[in-house]
């Protein structure tokens, strides 16, 4: 898998509930992409004031079509960059890099999988569900959001999954509450063996905890795709780091773009997100504020 940079023509921009979905011709990305990978999109034009790429997980790809391979991603307008993106129209050209990151690993043997999505974080889970079903896995979904218009992919989920549980914070659709409130029951009911999740960090932490406590504490693995803010998406800026425990048991500050975005949930130091744990490799004695003032990368 080698990421490529393409100038892709926008095919469609669709409003889906509170979100926008954009389909772009992206030959080279579409053919290589695997579930859980993402694209990094330049915003604001060649001479614009916004330099940092925006990363979006891939919702779905079409490998062949009239236009060549296409990539579809989902986003919410959250700032100037996504507002600019929302203003793109068919035939506009986007600078896209992808596919990036490590995809979701599939079970070696058919397994019962619960896929948990929060808001439009569910976007990469539908291609994952497809891939899982192709290798004989059972797939059940739990989708949650703050409000019903922020649930993404309800129809996709219903079409693909053996069962779907919905939650909303305000109770406007499905159960009132969080995905982690209903997840224990779903795991027990379907005798789940794996949990996959994508969504906000707090949700991923809760899902990881629920998975570890399943079956009276025996636990099942959780594979989670994190959302860390990134500047480049390709591994050179070192801004998207989080503390992750390696195979050797030691904690490192790893890049979520290169080493992730999918991690084993129990490897992430959830209590230390945003910090450098004192036992992390290379955690220096904290510098004083005066020392922090050096302009350095």
């Amino acid at each position, binding site marked *: 898998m080698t990421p490529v940079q393409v100038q892709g023509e926008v095919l469609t921009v669709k409003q889906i509930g509170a979100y926008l979905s954009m389909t772009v011709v992206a030959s080279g990305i579409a053919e290589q992409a695997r579930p859980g990978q993402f694209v990094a999109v*330049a915003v604001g034009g060649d001479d614009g004031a916004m*330099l940092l790429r925006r990363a979006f997980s891939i919702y779905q790809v079409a490998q062949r079509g009239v236009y060549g391979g296409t990539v579809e991603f989902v986003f919410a307008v959250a700032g100037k960059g996504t507002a600019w993106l929302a203003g793109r129209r068919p035939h506009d050209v986007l600078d896209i890099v992808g596919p990036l990151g490590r995809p979701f690993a599939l079970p070696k043997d058919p397994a019962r999988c619960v896929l948990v999505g929060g808001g439009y974080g569910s976007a990469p889970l539908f291609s994952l569900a497809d891939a899982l079903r192709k290798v004989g896995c059972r797939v059940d979904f739990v989708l949650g959001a703050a409000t019903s218009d922020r649930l993404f992919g309800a129809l996709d989920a219903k079409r693909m999954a053996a069962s779907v549980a919905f939650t909303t914070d305000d109770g406007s659709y499905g159960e009132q509450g969080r995905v982690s409130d209903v997840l224990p029951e779903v795991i027990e009911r379907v005798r789940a063996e794996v949990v996959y999740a994508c969504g906000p960090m707090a949700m991923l932490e809760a899902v990881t905890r629920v998975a570890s406590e399943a079956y009276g504490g025996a636990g099942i693995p959780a594979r989670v795709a994190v959302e860390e803010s990134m*500047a480049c998406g390709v591994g*050179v800026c070192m*801004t998207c780091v989080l503390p992750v425990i390696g195979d050797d048991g030691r904690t490192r500050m790893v890049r979520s773009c290169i080493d992730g975005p999918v991690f084993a949930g129990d490897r992430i130091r959830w209590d230390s997100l*945003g910090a*450098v744990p004192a036992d992390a490799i290379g955690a*220096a004695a904290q510098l004083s504020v005066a020392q922090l003032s050096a302009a350095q*990368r």
Partner: protein
Amino acid sequence: MSDVVVRTTAEAPLPADVDMSTTLGRLEVPDPVFTASGCAAAGRELAPFNDLAAIGGVVTKSIQMEPRSGRPTPRMAETPSGMLNSIGLQGPGIDAFLDKDLRWLADNDVRAAVSIAGGSVDEFARLAGRLRGQPVALIEVNISCPNVEDRGQVFACDPNAAAAVIAAVKRNAPTGVPVFAKLSPDVTDIVAIARACVDAGADGLSLINTTLGLAIDPKTMRPTLAGITGGLSGPAIRPLALRCVWQVHAALPDVPVMGIGGIRTGVDALEFILAGASAVQVGTVIFNDPSAPSRISAELRTALATAGFAALRDAIGLAHRPPALRVPEDADPPGDDAVEPEPMPREVTFEDAQS
């Protein structure tokens, strides 16, 4: 320099014919575009997007003796035409760097300009010593580091401290490998620091490092970066960087300079060359466009050709030549062709007396 003639576009060479080679101390490179330290990791991640062996080289992320995990997050904030970063020199330490990163660069025929960073003069000296016998094209000394032996005072902000680091690096560095000091713009007189580094033995200067900035998150009403302040980079600082290159080249015209700061296009790079840079480094633009090093090299080649340069070297420092004050020889004295003023319009009346 007064005999340099900027040729007209009618005589412009083809871009492919422009000699892009340049000289950085004892290092001759076929292309003047390097990646800037901290913006390309150790090169490998950019290989899918660039022919790294064809550009000038990769300036690696500053390496220290020990592994370092850097600062907490958030580590970056987007700002107008730029960004703030506070990474904290996260890196694997010199041993792993030599074993893995430098080896990869050598195996792939990429010229490695190794950036070193230390918390003391001694650490800089030891780092330079570790580079002996290694495939290193150039050493860039990141003196924008706090000196732990001097209350965190940044080496780059004090001519004596900067000179002490450079002298120590020169004593220990592999023979024949040029040593460049990378200067901070956050000083009153950058020429004084530049001169101190050159007097201490620096073979050249990298101008500039980031300038210190701050962003505040209006939601939390706290600084956006976990490290409070961060280094500002990107096109926002290009005029500042260009000014520094200009001033240093004017004062020290024989010292090779690598121009760094907000270069986004080949024309931006040409500005730095004209201001006196012998080569350029591209940094933050890589986050915007991972193909930027190769693209900017190609664009610079075209820009040089369009301006009539057969060789990059002919353009270095050319903006320092005196302004042309020629009056065109065939200009007529004023008045000869004086145009009669148009007569004032008169009121027109018609035969049929309609109004």
